[in-house]
């Protein structure tokens, strides 16, 4: 009986402790202090990180890709997420955010109001971003247009509608460890930063566990397409047998070695990658060659 009482007490303390640990954990206010943003470099970060691909209106093309009004729908096992407006609109977008607010949102998954954001925003990847890149990105995003379209609520049911649960998920799955650890050549190291931190390749190309977190043991080994039909391919050397030159050409023009052309969401990724310097695409190619083969 006394033991039971103890167990209950330990359980309550444990739950309380978890509640404390799982609270939103923003960056220290000093995180971006002393850094100043560069618009040109920020634009490269913006494309590498693929911000527009998800936050522009569905099927936007050309200049409309820079109107980050939101509204695209992303189906998942947990419900459908609707990309919010992240344009410079003060009321409906993020026009009033500071650089620190942006850094908290994309690297910590915490809103300026101190709420957990859902990991449909790939902060599990962006957590690895350098603060200078975030500040540069902020500078570039401030040059983008404002759009007054209100953000739509996500369509998710209980228990995933409880944002507190996201805190526990973050404790379990969000960290700044590289999926491909260790020392790499300078080129592959740059490729790792682009692929793992910015372009968040793993978010689609790596299978997820029952809780929706990436199975890093099967990094880039392919996954079902959350939108329904088809499968997102394995891009480890087990299946992706293209030469580095093939990969660079694919990321530049969208042509596979058979001269089929990219389609689906990957077409956005190629558009983004094509805007980076060729050295960055070569870096990604070298990184992909260094990833362990996984069937």
């Amino acid at each position, binding site marked *: 009986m006394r033991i039971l009482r103890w167990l209950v007490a330990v359980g309550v303390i444990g739950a309380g402790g978890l509640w404390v640990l799982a609270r939103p954990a923003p960056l220290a206010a000093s995180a971006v202090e002393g850094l100043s943003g560069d618009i040109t470099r920020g634009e490269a970060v913006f494309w590498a990180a693929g911000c527009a691909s998800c936050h522009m209106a569905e099927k936007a*093309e050309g200049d409309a890709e820079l109107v980050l009004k939101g509204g695209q729908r992303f189906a998942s096992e947990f419900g459908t997420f609707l990309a919010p407006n992240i344009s410079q609109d003060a009321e409906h977008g993020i026009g009033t955010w500071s650089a620190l607010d942006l850094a908290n949102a994309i690297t910590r998954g915490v809103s300026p109001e101190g709420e957990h954001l859902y990991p449909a925003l790939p902060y599990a990847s962006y957590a690895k971003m350098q603060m200078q890149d975030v500040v540069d990105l902020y500078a570039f995003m401030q040059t983008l247009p404002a759009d007054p379209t209100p953000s739509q609520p996500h369509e998710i049911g209980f228990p995933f509608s409880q944002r507190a649960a996201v805190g526990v998920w973050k404790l379990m799955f969000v960290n700044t460890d590289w999926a491909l650890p260790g020392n790499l050549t300078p080129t592959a190291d740059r490729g790792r930063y682009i692929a793992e931190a910015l372009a968040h390749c793993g978010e689609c190309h790596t299978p997820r566990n029952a809780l929706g977190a990436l199975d890093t043991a099967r990094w880039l080994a392919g996954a079902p397409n959350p939108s329904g039909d*088809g*499968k997102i391919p394995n891009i480890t050397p087990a299946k992706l047998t293209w030469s580095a030159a093939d990969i660079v050409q694919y990321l530049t*023009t969208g*042509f596979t070695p*058979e001269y089929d052309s990219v*389609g*689906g969401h990957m*077409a*956005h990724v190629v558009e983004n990658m094509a805007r980076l310097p060729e050295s960055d695409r070569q870096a990604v190619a070298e990184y992909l060659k260094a990833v362990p083969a996984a069937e």
Partner: protein
Amino acid sequence: MRHTILLAAALSALAFGAVAQAEDPFADAVEMRHGLMLQMATDMGKLGSMAKGEAVYDAAIASRSAENVAAIASVLSMDQFPAGSEYKAAADSFALPAIWATPDDFMAKITDLNTAAAALKVASATDVEGLKAGMGQVGAACSACHKAYRQPED
């Protein structure tokens, strides 16, 4: 007896009609567009191996392939995309229903391809850097259309 033969003939004619009907009415259209894409891929392949440095740049070969790409682009139209020949409805088709929902946009993307192919013809005849730039434009036109209008393969 005569009646029986006639009846049998009539029945078999009906059955034959049913079989003919059950044959895929879009097989020709699907085969035609796949053939056009395959020829396009073959010519892009010649240009691409020069761009990748796997083959030595040859202005004559490059021009010839770029001309083929432009010629194929000029042939593309709704003629190869009869209504109903979409993904899951017609065998081997990956054409999304959006083509018939927004045919003007679909054709605009084919016009973009023609523009890019015309630029490739000029650029590929100059040097390998021009060829690379021209391929980038054609590639962007290919994927703009495939992104919107083609079901990705598994």
